């Protein structure tokens, strides 16, 4: 049929089918800002304006839009001039991955057109249909307020970072910030004035001792809330994501996944599918070579067991791969899938990690070529053991012994952009994979043997991606796309639909965690044993390392002379757990922090003081770390904590949450609201910065004719802002503004290697690589300046303000230096490459706080406020750092409170859609409060530590602590659903 739609002010006549959605037609017409999120319109990424009102274009037929007026973000900016809403989103840090930014901008536009001066509730309602897994909505709300003020012709109230007075005394603080630590470094001027943005940013007026880089006092770019380097294209909705790439003749791939949790495939008959016109390839176990691998995106050699093949004659969970097709349209592909006849022999299944390892459960990996599992017959992929001292001796010496068991459940990362990959043969007949991945270099190396291609014939490109959170630290679908390109000879696109994203990608590991702890009469820990059964589902992709991190994090926060970690990693028939932001730590810290509070309560001690007595302080060794490292690397001696702002974090967090209320009975049980109880809780968090001795990042940097620089990094920006942070580091070293750094990242042909975006490594590891490369280039530039100025000694030349300045006052511009070196004299390309791998993983520390209200009649818990004070070292970009904290806390809130993968007894997930899975929306959020407590980490670039994962760690135990404060109820299982809370209250009475 032919329809005419007015799109962004222009009447367009379009040919479409009656069944086609408006989204599909708009994208076909080149409006790439309208993006897929699900089949139901529930993510909001596909929202557009229809006659000025926000509607979901994915649940609207194109035919219905005929004769109507449509607006997309493409119509908002005029040439280079952005709409004030777009500018506000850029300036406030409201854009992380930017995948759903166009929809949010349109929602704001519709609101402000009708209501120029909205309340916060109205703003939150207006954007409540657009899910954001990244920002926690704090900055988008701020962006709408700023834009509203500008559109009203007012000067917007920009929320500037607020400098807080340190609360803990600089002298004699228990962090080991003793006199010598602080000596002579109480500079009253804030080093990091920051830009607009974070609600509250604490900028310490004095830095702890340790060696301060000479340039730390004159920082121009680092420490500033610079606008993200990719913000412009994301605000405009430019085609920047995998799906925004079109090729003539591209085929659409579709997966056939298992309806059974555990079954043998006796036969596959694909003849009816192949006979369908428009089908170009059908692949499955009978026509794809059996090559074993492990899909986790990790360094070489990937941890054993390698328990996967591209297609097996067995399925091990509902959603497991059975076959894939490539066809000319999505409809033909879907029809072809239906025509594949599969004969299954259904086998008994096991889902619970404790049942799986009894020896009486069905054997999940019984294939003859299975190797390297700890005990495949008992479904144990790994047994992990680590010990310091001797716990039994410790228990014998202890005055009191406590033992508690906790259970953490399965959740999914839910990136709004699902996994998607486009593959094609390029002109040189090399396979190009344009993939939404966190690990382009690992993916290239890992996919090569599966496809039978050498690494040199594969190029992996990561464009902008719409969130990853660990789900994309995998070589998940690249092999399928590669096989289909090889089989069909044509370009192929595979995008998981929302249900597949839930059940056929990756999730968080459920665990059963038991702590047994011995305590002395004076409150010191003397022995701590942690026993974990981890559930790695059908495959062990990250099974070893997530559980290792659980042990590492679960036994590192508190000093104790005798520690032991015992862990069994169980195969089961649930969809596969893998990497998810936090990576084993949120599980461990829910158990650890709850356990510590239970001990404190039993001892009659204040929980915070009991924790403070035992938590690690500056100078303390992280003694179990050497045994719980990752990969093959030998870490050697126990690392030592060099910086910790933990005491200050706790003090700031208590102030932010108004901690004293928790001791007031009238506040806890308000006399006028009989069924309401209120509470405040806290948790201590400690994380790592990268995997020591293993994570490696590299950077190349070269000068251009105009004195600008190309920065090439393998590091992978998921929307986190790492491209921006790395550019800021380069700009700082080279004395140029951020705009002079042109960054290109994550392309295996053009950028140096990087392990990828995971383990809180990018700022710390890749940032140091960038700094080293920039410093080396700086030497070359200084030398060239010396040559041009006739200096005998160029060591004291300084790069500043796009110039090389000699001590005698003369200067040459970087542009002149570039032209001189490229064209005029002793020509050479000034460029440098550096890599970095760290022996250290300095821990960021934090205090996380929650205020809740609970209805003791219904069991409903409402989280009113989350506060986090975090020591992430120096924040290279305070606005992106605080955005990481807000977004991380919000995901953690879902984990603690409402998100849950629910199954029927046959292992079929019952809520594999956005709606019933329950992700926090903008209008349901508690208040978020972020404080950055900055320490100067001597091993990090410009003093930085990691920040991306630690916000995930403490929300669940802080809420558990608040529930305990409110009601005396101790919940040892998450999430805190109304029914779970009600049942526990019932049992307690």
């Amino acid at each position, binding site marked *: *049929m032919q329809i005419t739609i007015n799109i962004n002010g222009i009447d367009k006549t379009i040919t479409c*089918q*009656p*069944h*086609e*959605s408006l989204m*599909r037609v708009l994208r076909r017409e080149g409006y790439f800002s309208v993006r897929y999120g699900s*089949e*139901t*319109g529930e993510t*909001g990424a596909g*929202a557009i304006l*229809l006659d000025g*009102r*926000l*509607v*979901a274009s*994915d*649940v*609207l*037929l194109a*035919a*219905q839009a005929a004769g109507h007026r449509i607006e997309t973000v493409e119509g908002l900016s005029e040439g280079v001039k952005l709409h004030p809403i777009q500018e506000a989103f850029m300036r406030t840090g409201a854009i992380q991955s930017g995948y759903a930014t166009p929809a949010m901008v349109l*929602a704001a536009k*519709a609101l402000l057109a009708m209501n120029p001066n909205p309340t916060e509730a109205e703003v939150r*309602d*207006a954007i*409540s*249909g657009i899910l954001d897994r990244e920002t926690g909505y704090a900055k988008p709300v701020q962006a709408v307020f700023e834009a509203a003020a500008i559109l009203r012709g007012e000067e917007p109230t920009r929320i500037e970072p607020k400098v807080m007075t340190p609360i803990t005394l600089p002298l004699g603080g228990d962090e080991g910030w003793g006199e010598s630590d602080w000596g002579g470094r109480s500079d009253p001027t804030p080093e990091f004035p920051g830009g607009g943005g974070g609600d509250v940013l604490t900028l310490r007026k004095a830095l702890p001792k340790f060696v301060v880089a000479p340039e730390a006092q004159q920082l121009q770019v680092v420490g500033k809330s610079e606008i993200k380097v990719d913000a412009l294209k994301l605000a405009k909705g430019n085609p920047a994501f995998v799906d925004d790439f079109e090729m003539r003749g591209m085929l659409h791939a579709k997966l056939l996944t298992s309806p059974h949790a555990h079954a043998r495939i006796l036969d596959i008959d694909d003849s009816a599918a192949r006979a369908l016109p428009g089908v170009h390839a059908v692949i499955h176990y009978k026509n794809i070579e059996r090559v074993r691998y492990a899909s986790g995106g990790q360094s070489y050699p990937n941890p054993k067991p390698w328990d996967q093949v591209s297609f097996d004659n067995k399925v091990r969970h509902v959603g497991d791969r059975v076959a894939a097709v490539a066809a000319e349209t*999505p*409809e033909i592909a*879907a029809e072809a899938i239906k025509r594949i006849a599969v004969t299954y022999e259904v086998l008994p299944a096991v889902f619970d990690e404790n049942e799986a390892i009894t020896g009486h459960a069905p054997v999940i990996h019984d294939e003859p070529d299975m190797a390297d599992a700890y005990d495949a017959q008992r479904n144990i992929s790994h047994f992990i053991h680590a010990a310091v001292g001797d716990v039994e001796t410790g228990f014998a010496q202890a005055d009191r012994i406590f033992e508690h068991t906790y259970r953490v459940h399965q959740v999914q990362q839910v990136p709004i952009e699902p996994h998607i990959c486009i593959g094609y043969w390029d002109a040189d007949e090399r396979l190009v994979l344009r993939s939404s991945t966190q690990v382009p270099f690992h993916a290239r190396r890992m996919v090569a043997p599966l496809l039978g291609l050498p690494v040199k014939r594969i190029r992996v490109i990561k464009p902008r991606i719409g969130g990853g959170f660990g789900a994309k630290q995998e070589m998940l679908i690249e092999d399928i796309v590669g096989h289909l390109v090889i089989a069909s000879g044509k370009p192929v696109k595979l995008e998981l*639909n929302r249900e597949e994203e839930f059940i056929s990608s990756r999730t968080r590991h459920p665990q059963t965690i038991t702590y047994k702890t011995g305590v002395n009469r004076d409150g010191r820990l003397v022995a701590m044993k942690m026993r974990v059964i981890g559930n790695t589902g059908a495959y062990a992709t990250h099974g070893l390392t997530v559980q290792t991190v659980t042990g590492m994090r679960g036994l590192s926060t508190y000093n104790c002379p005798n520690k032991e970690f015992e862990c069994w990693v169980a195969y089961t028939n649930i969809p596969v757990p893998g990497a998810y932001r936090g990576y084993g730590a949120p599980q461990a810290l829910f158990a650890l922090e709850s356990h510590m509070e239970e001990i404190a309560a039993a001892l009659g001690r204040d929980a915070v003081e009991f924790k403070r007595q035992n938590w690690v302080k500056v100078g303390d060794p992280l003694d179990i770390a050497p045994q719980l490292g990752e990969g093959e690397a030998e870490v050697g001696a126990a690392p030592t904590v060099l910086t910790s702002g933990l005491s200050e974090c706790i003090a700031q967090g208590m102030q932010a949450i108004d901690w004293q209320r928790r001791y007031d009975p009238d506040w806890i049980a308000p006399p006028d609201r009989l069924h309401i109880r209120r509470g405040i809780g806290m948790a201590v968090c400690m994380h790592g910065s990268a995997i020591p001795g293993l994570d490696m990042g590299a950077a190349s940097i070269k000068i251009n004719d105009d004195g600008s620089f190309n920065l090439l990094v393998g590091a992978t920006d998921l929307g986190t802002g790492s491209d921006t942070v790395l550019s800021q580091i380069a700009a700082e070293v080279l004395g140029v503004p951020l705009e002079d750094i042109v960054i290109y990242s994550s392309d295996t042909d053009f950028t140096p290697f990087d392990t990828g975006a995971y383990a809180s490594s990018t700022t710390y590891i890749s940032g140091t690589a960038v700094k080293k490369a920039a410093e080396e280039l700086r030497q070359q530039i200084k030398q060239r300046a010396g040559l041009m100025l006739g200096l005998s000694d160029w060591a004291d030349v300084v790069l500043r303000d796009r110039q090389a300045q000699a001590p005698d006052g003369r200067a040459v511009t970087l542009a002149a230096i570039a032209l001189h070196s490229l064209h005029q004299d002793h020509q050479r390309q000034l460029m440098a490459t550096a890599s970095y791998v760290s022996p250290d993983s300095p821990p960021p520390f934090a205090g996380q706080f929650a205020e809740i209200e609970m*209805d003791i*009649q*219904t*069991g*409903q818990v*409402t989280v009113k406020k989350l506060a986090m004070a975090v020591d992430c070292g120096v924040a290279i970009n305070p606005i992106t750092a605080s955005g990481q904290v807000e977004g991380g806390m919000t995901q953690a809130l879902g984990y603690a*409170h*409402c998100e849950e993968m*629910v199954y029927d007894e046959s292992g079929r997930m*019952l*809520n594999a859609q956005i*709606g*019933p899975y*329950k992700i*926090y*929306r903008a*209008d*349901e959020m508690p208040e978020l409060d972020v404080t950055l407590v900055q320490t100067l980490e001597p091993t990090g670039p410009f003093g930085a530590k990691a920040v991306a994962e630690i916000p995930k760690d403490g929300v669940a135990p802080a809420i558990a602590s608040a529930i305990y404060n409110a009601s005396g109820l101790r919940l040892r299982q998450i*999430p805190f*659903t*109304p*029914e779970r809370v*009600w*049942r526990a209250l019932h049992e307690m009475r």
Partner: protein
Amino acid sequence: MKPPSFKYHAPRSVEEAAGLLAEHGYDAKLLAGGQSLIPTMNFRLAQPAVLIDLNRIPELAYIHPAGDGGVRIGAMSRHVQVEKSDLIAQAAPLIHETMPLIAHPQIRNRGTFGGSIAHADPASELPAALLTLGGRVQARGAKGARWIEADEFFLGLFTTALQPDELLAEVRFPALPARAGFAAREVARRHGDYALVGVMALVGLDAGGACNLARLTYFSVGDGPTPAPQAAAALIGQRPTSEALAAAAELAASADIPEPVADIHATAAFRRHLIKALGKQALQQAFIRAGGAA
């Protein structure tokens, strides 16, 4: 996944739509706001041969006062229009308070009042409100129009008394009596989310302060909006004491809805408990609003 192909009609009048329905009957699906139908078509759970789009029938979108002081809502009125209507705020305040609870702007901008009633989703608020307020709906087809009372309209899971050749044209709410009070309460995993159990209450008091009107309707507990007639009957003639309300709510759980549904969000036992707890809270608030503090 995209919906399979079908024949698409966009009639311009109710008469034209009724003619198409008469012609295609069981093969046809009516497309109102599409917020439920199009997702099910995207999943291929619904595969109609003919789709009749009601969005181009202007005569179905209106909000008018009814002669009796009540209100008439054209089936294709968008949620947002009902939400913002002054007439609704004044004549049907329970509806006015319910509208902001419905999802988020994309759905409220596109979803229709009649569509939500006709879809008869057991978790949705509007069918329960229709029952509680004692409203009725007008069905129209090629053979003419007929009125269906709310308590005869909802027949089961996503099932109503509408015939395959009928469309829902209007929803009508009567005026609230004097000294009436209403309330809605729900519990969700998170504040603002779909209800695990929800309840709506409408009560009235006579001059002596005794209850002369009581309706209690639950949602998310069964196959559709679920009234609690025995609980309501027990209140008639009573003064709204705390004990009387507790007894009524107890009756709702034990006699009216002894076997609420169990699903992934809540067990039957928990729902039974919530029927009691929320029923009492809703009645309490309704009686306070009616002027007889409980």
